[in-house]
C-alpha cells in the first residue's frame, strides 16, 4: 500500500506519517504542494493520497486526477460514498482522501480513521501552541508597558502593574489590551519603546 501525504505543514505531515508507520504502513511519501508537485505524485503512483482539506492546492491535484495518463487506474475521492459518518468526520477533521479505483474499503478505512485521529490531535496541539504563544506575547507586552510607566511616572514595578490592572478593570478590557494601547500612545508621543 503506497501512501502519499500532500501537506505544506511539516509538523502535521510528520505527525501523520509517524502514526501510519506505527500502524505498520511503510511505503509513505511526503510531497509538499509546491511547484510541479503533481508530476511527483504521478511518478510515485500511489494507492492513496491524503491531503489537507484546507489546502488551496486541491483543485490542482484534482485536475491532475482528471487528465493524467500516467496513472494506471483512476483515483477518486473518499472510499465508499455510503459511509456518510466517516466522510463527515473526515471533513470535520480537515482530511481529504483520494483512493485508487478498486481498492477494498476495509483496506482503506483504517488509514482514513488514523488520518482523522491524527489531524484532530494535531489541531488540538496547534491550538495549545497558539495559546501558549499568545500568552507569552502578552507577557512581553505587559512588561514593556510596565517599563514605560516606571520610567515616565517614576513608579515601582508593582505600582506600574497595579495601575495597568486598575485601568483595565475600569475600562472592562484585558490588561494586555491596555498595555498595547499604552505602548502605541507612547510611541506616537515619541517616547521610548
Amino acid at each position: 500500500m503506497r501512501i502519499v501525504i500532500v501537506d505544506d505543514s511539516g509538523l502535521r505531515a510528520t505527525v501523520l506519517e509517524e502514526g501510519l508507520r506505527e500502524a505498520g504502513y511503510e511505503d509513505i511519501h511526503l510531497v509538499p504542494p509546491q511547484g510541479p508537485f503533481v508530476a511527483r505524485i504521478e511518478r510515485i503512483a500511489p494507492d492513496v493520497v491524503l491531503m489537507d482539506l484546507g489546502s488551496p492546492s486541491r483543485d490542482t491535484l484534482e485536475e491532475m486526477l482528471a487528465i493524467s495518463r500516467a496513472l494506471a487506474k483512476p483515483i477518486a475521492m473518499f472510499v465508499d460514498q455510503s459511509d456518510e459518518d466517516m466522510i463527515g468526520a473526515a471533513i470535520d477533521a480537515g482530511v481529504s482522501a483520494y483512493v485508487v479505483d478498486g481498492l477494498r474499503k476495509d483496506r482503506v478505512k483504517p488509514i482514513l480513521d488514523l488520518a482523522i485521529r491524527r489531524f484532530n490531535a494535531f489541531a488540538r496541539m496547534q491550538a495549545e501552541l497558539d495559546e501558549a504563544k499568545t500568552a507569552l506575547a502578552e507577557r512581553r507586552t505587559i512588561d514593556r508597558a510596565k517599563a514605560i510607566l516606571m520610567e515616565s511616572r517614576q513608579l515601582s514595578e508593582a505600582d506600574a502593574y497595579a495601575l495597568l490592572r486598575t485601568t483595565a478593570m475600569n475600562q472592562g478590557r484585558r490588561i494586555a489590551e491596555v498595555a498595547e494601547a499604552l505602548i502605541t500612545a507612547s510611541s506616537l508621543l515619541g517616547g521610548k519603546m
Partner: protein
Amino acid sequence: MTSISIAFVPLTDSAVLVAAREKGFAAEQGIELNLVRSTSWATLRDRLVYGQVQAAHMLAPLAIGVTLGLSQHRTALAAPFKLNVNGNALTMSTAFAAALDPDLPRRIDDPIAAAHDFAGAIGLHFRKPIIGVVHRFSSHALMLRYWLAYAGVDPDRDLTLRVLPPSLMVEALRNGEIDGFIAGAPWASVATAEGIGEMVAGGARIWQRGVEKVLAFRTQWMESEPDLVDRLLRALSRAAAWCDEPANHAELAELLADRRYVAQPAERIMPALSGTVVPRLGEPAITVPDWLLFHREAAGFPWRSQALWIYSQFVRWKMIDPSAKAERLAADVFRSDIYRRALGNAGVPMPGASMKLEGALGAPLAVGAHQGALTLGPDRFFDGRVFDPHHVATYLAELETR
C-alpha cells in the same frame, strides 16, 4: 432566527453574501448567515455535497459539472440565483504582453484584434504559454477557450492550462511558474498593482453578460426547505441591489477587505466594483461600466439558456459526450422557477421568459416582464455569434467550421 451556512471562496464576487450578512439583509429575513471561507473549489464543493453547508458561492460551470457527475461525487445541484455577472480579467506577464498591442484601452476594447495578437504572440514566446485557470469547470476557463479559439488557437494543443487557486496566481506569476492567469477580482488588480503583469482582456468584453458565480444548493435540500430558500433569496436580492449602488462601493470594498473575507486591501477591491481598472502599473485607468454586475438588469435571474451555453462549451471541449439527457440535466440546474417563486412579490423586475437567445442584444432593450420595467443590457459575444438554446448542435457545428 434560522441559521444557514454558506461556503464561499475569498473573491470580490462573494460581495452579495458578505453584504447580506454584514448589512443585515439576512437578519431582516430571520436568517443568521454563517459564511464558511474555503480556499479551494474542491473543498467548497465537498462542503456542499456532503452537507456541511446548505449553500455555496459556486462557479456556475462547476455546479453543472457536479450535477453531470464530472467532478467527483455526482450530486444534483440547483442554482436559483446568480450572485454576479462578469468580473474576470486575463492578466499576462509583462514579457508576454510586450508582443501585444501597446495601446491598452484599445487592447481591452477590441477583443477580436487582441485575440489575433495573442495567437501571434504564442509563437514568439520562449515556451508554450502556461496560463493559470481557477478550475476546469470555471467560466474563466470557458471564456478564455472561447476567445482564443476564435483566432485559431487550440487551447488544449497550443497552451498549457494549469489549474491554480485564485489566491496563488499572483505568486505563481511572480515566480515565472505561469505566464498569465484568468481569474476573478481582485487578483488582476493585485498583479497589476505589483507591476508583475498587465491586463490583456476583460471578461465583460468577451461576453458582455457572462455568467459567473451562482448560489448553489443540493436540489434535495432546496426542495425540502421552500420557505427558508425564498427568504434567503429575498435577502440576497436586496443585498445585491445594495452592492450595485455606486454610493455603497467604498463601504463594500472595506467590508470585503476584512481578513475573514477577501483579505486584500480595499483599494485593490475597488477597481472591479467601480469598473475603473488600471491595466498596467503607472498607466491611466480605463472605465468599463459593466465590469461587474450584481443586481441591475435582473442580473440574479438564472436564464436556463445560460446553463445550456455552459453545457455547449463542455461538449465543444470534449469534457462530456453530447446527449439529450445531459443537456436537459444541465438546463435544469438553473432554477428560474425558484427565483420566480421567491421574488415574485418582492418588487424586482421579473423576466417573462426563462430562455433567451444569448448574445443577440447589441444595445439595451426593454423586454417583457411580469412586474416592473426590465431593460436588458447588451449581451453580445465579442465575435457576434448568437447562441440559440434550442439548437445546441447547430451552434457547435458552426463553431467548428470557423
